[in-house]
């Protein structure tokens, strides 16, 4: 079973509503990634953190998406105004370090449906 915990497993929102999902990375993993997996199973990178600091994020994330990883609290990804095209599985992954040899460990994801 995954040690990266994502909640909720399922999230249903109307267009224009906020959608917020949470992630508890594996203990001792300061590096956190968020990916979007669409209905065709394609992965899209959204944002990554080291501890509380955002390191990289894509343009889409900068406009409607916000994310944070506060100290001693779960990480979160929030979509300010949901659109139908945001319907997807949102995967959180954590890693021990930045180095490329370090494996990303994934949670089971939050499946967002925007009606």
């Amino acid at each position, binding site marked *: 079973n*995954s040690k990266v915990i994502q909640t909720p497993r399922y999230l249903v929102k109307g267009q224009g509503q906020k959608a917020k999902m949470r992630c508890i990375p594996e203990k001792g993993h300061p590096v956190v*990634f968020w990916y979007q997996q669409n209905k065709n*199973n*394609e*992965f899209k*990178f959204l944002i990554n953190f080291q501890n509380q600091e955002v390191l990289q994020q894509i343009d889409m994330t900068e406009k409607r998406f916000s994310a944070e990883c506060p100290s001693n609290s779960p990480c979160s990804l929030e979509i300010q105004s949901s659109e139908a095209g945001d319907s997807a599985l949102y995967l959180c992954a954590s890693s021990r370090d930045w180095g*490329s040899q370090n494996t*990303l460990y*994934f949670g*089971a994801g939050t499946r967002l449906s925007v009606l």
Partner: protein
Amino acid sequence: GDSVTQTEGLVTLTKGLPVMLNCTYQTTYSPFLFWYVQHLNEAPKLLLKSSTDNKRTEHQGFYATLHKSSSSFHLQKSSVQLSDSALYFCALRELSGSFNKLTFGAGTRLAVCP
């Protein structure tokens, strides 16, 4: 930028037969390659990883060899089981450079029949 290509969208096999799932990649830097497996409604899990040229790596009956000359990291198994039915993703990280995200291929669905 980096890219990963998986040519097969769906592979259907009978239990006990061998399988090879193709993965090729493009990167400017030295690569680190991964295979992840994702069962239905579960988290993607690491199956194999390698950055060593021409060295076979194995786990749970699956194996792959990174060939930098052909930019390939094909996944193989000599005898598939029903429980191997899942989505398989090849992924790439650079060994240098500031952007260390994992770049995924489109995935291959393996369906094993009795």
